[in-house]
């Protein structure tokens, strides 16, 4: 420990120019570490090949692992981290922790650089809404997420067509449909009982659509009583009905995410809350012709601040350049390669997920789930919203809100007690002086 930084990063700097906005030294080696999960590593190898086309003298070291934090922690500590890290998966390093320790490079230069192959545009202008927001901490952009994710309510269009059901646009329609579904012998809802935070997403989304974007901002900024706002109360009261009226598949609290999603794929439940990785995750057990689709949360009433079509769109699959990387300019240039139209299209084709580059899915053949995601995002347009407290304070979502959701959706707490428990969790983070706080702009 304790080897002081001798300024290695400057050693790898070359001349800055229009073609080379970060000053990449043409023969500086680049080390890339990829999370070998749902997306595999082939897409990254393709990006590396593209990088080498422009910088043929750069030697790229590629490695892939499922344990990002265990593999890389020692290298962060002794000051010799790789240049590009795909910080993802269950072994992800807590981003808030990395930012608060000054371990990451500010990526703002990347946003202001010209796009590699979209003429006349800066990288910033090629991205879908929310990408910069979700990677920013106190106004500085540290984390580039390359996959665009929608969160919503999923259903099988085939099941709905067969039974003559239509996806509900208002809360009253939703409850009425739940009654019909239950009467038909199917459970209207199921959720990841052992990771009940999955249900916090529709609750917060409903509240944001009802009360406007400040609902999310206040939660993100740990404002006092943010979880007990009128909008959150209205939303929790509404959602309580699916608990009270027994609209949830019996046994759900004992299921994990895969078990509940599988029950849903088997038609035992009609709705489930998830993000757009669902189609990929369920590939092996989804029956042919199931036709899954995502839809926004139903509107609470006519006074909702956002239209029904508004969905939560955000970016996931984070990439970082460590502050002590030997080749920081190369890391930024690698990011610019990933965000070129060519790189983005290749990514979408290889991993069947959306890229954060706008328009990169045009002309690609996508599965039914992903097609519905593209449509939902188009319909949502500029009304899209997001929240980021789970990036700032991972513990708040993964442990505290998670536990509160479990109690609430198992029917052991009332809406008021549920919001009280969430607020108590948020307050405990706000009070803890050993946790660095961030402000969302």
């Amino acid at each position: 420990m304790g080897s002081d930084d001798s300024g290695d990063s400057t050693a790898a700097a070359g001349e800055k120019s229009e073609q080379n906005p970060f000053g990449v030294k043409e023969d500086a080696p680049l080390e890339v570490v990829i999370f070998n999960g749902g997306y595999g590593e082939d897409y990254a190898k393709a990006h590396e090949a593209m990088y080498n086309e422009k910088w043929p003298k750069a030697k790229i070291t590629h490695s892939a692992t499922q344990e990002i934090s265990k593999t890389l922690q020692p290298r962060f500590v002794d000051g010799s981290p790789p240049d590009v890290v795909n910080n993802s998966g269950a072994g992800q390093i807590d981003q808030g922790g990395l930012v608060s320790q000054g371990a990451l490079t500010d990526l703002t230069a990347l946003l202001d650089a010209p796009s590699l192959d979209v003429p006349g545009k800066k990288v910033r202008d090629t991205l879908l809404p929310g990408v910069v927001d979700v990677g920013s901490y106190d106004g500085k952009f540290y984390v580039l997420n390359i996959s665009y994710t929608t969160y919503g309510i999923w259903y099988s269009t085939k099941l709905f067509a067969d039974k003559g059901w239509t996806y509900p646009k208002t809360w009253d329609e939703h409850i009425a449909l739940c009654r019909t579904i239950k009467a038909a012998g199917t459970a209207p809802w199921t959720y990841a009982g052992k990771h009940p935070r999955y249900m916090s997403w529709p609750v917060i989304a409903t509240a944001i659509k009802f009360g406007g974007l400040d609902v999310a901002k206040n939660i993100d900024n740990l404002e006092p009583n943010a979880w007990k706002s009128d909008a959150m109360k209205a939303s929790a009261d509404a959602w309580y009905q699916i608990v009270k009226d027994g609209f949830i598949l019996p046994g759900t609290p004992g299921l994990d995410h895969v078990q509940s999603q599988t029950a849903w794929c088997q038609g035992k439940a009609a709705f489930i809350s998830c993000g757009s990785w669902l189609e990929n995750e369920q590939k092996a057990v989804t029956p042919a012709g199931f036709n899954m689709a995502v839809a926004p949360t139903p509107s609470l009433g006519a006074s909702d601040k956002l239209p029904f079509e508004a969905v939560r769109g955000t970016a996931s699959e984070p990439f970082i350049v460590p502050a002590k990387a030997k080749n920081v300019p190369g890391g930024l240039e690698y990011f610019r390669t990933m965000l070129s139209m060519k790189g983005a299209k290749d990514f979408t084709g290889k991993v069947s997920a959306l890229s954060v580059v706008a328009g990169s899915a045009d002309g690609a053949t996508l599965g039914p789930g992903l097609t519905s995601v593209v449509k939902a995002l188009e319909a949502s347009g500029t009304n899209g919203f997001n929240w980021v407290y789970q990036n700032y304070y991972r513990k708040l979502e993964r442990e505290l809100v998670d536990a509160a959701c479990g109690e609430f959706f198992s029917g052991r707490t009332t809406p008021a007690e549920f919001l009280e428990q969430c607020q108590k969790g948020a307050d405990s983070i706000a009070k803890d002086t050993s946790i660095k706080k961030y402000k969302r702009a």
Partner: protein
Amino acid sequence: MRHGKYPLIVAFLVPPLLLYGVFVLSPYVQAFQISTTDWGGYTADANYVGFDNFTRLFRDDYVWNAIQNNAILLAVVPLVTIALGLFFATMLNMGGRGGKAGVTGVRGTAAYRLVYFFPQVLSVVIIAVVWREVYHPNNGLLNGLLKPLGIDGPTWLGDPRYAFWCVLAVMVWSNVGFYVVLFGAAMQAIPRDIYEAVLLDGASRFVTLVRITIPLLWDTVQVAWIYLAIAALDGFILVQLMTDGGPNHSSDVIGLRMYNTAFASDTRFGYASAIGVVMFFLTLSVAVLALRASKRDRIEYS
């Protein structure tokens, strides 16, 4: 030969001691040092914060909740495991009295012994995964057995009233087999004529177990007690894989708290080390107390 003795001893002792020092002692010492800092785990910088982490820990309800669960494990797991282990070992070694002379086990002893030992062969991870499916509320073996009886089983791991006890049951289940074999082996060493004499006096099986077998097995029981007490203060793998401490922290244990604080939902390695240091002292005190409390004179067979 004399001259060669010390080099030989040194040659055999130094490598293991060195390994022990590097891989066991030095991490302990480092953990003590880290627990007095605010180290975040991903830079070389750490600030000395004195006992801040320990005062924070003292006021952390989630840590206390976890310690409380470990205390229950400590009270229940060794007792139940040893009781079951002794019972099964007795049945396998001297349970059969089907009119035959002598002391034998029940019929099918060899098969039972094999079956009891199965869990010991499986890795803990596999045990956790298998039991997670057994407890599955809709397709699980357990509720599948209850259904024909007309009972709609609970959600087990999804219900804070049962989740912790479900994990505790698996902990006992996975340990019993080993102690059946351990106690069984120790019973083999007890001279048969003692039992034959007791039989002639007309003692029941229960009296034989309590008055003869357990006192003669006391050394072994004591060892089992300490092992199980240490295991009860851990429980991390089963809990993490089966419930992840949920629902609502109802099955949390101190090892999981430490892991989550450092690796999962936080990167506060300083605070996690403080939890580890507390865990170290808890385990040490429990082991010492267990040794003291169960101390008795050794019995030697002439």
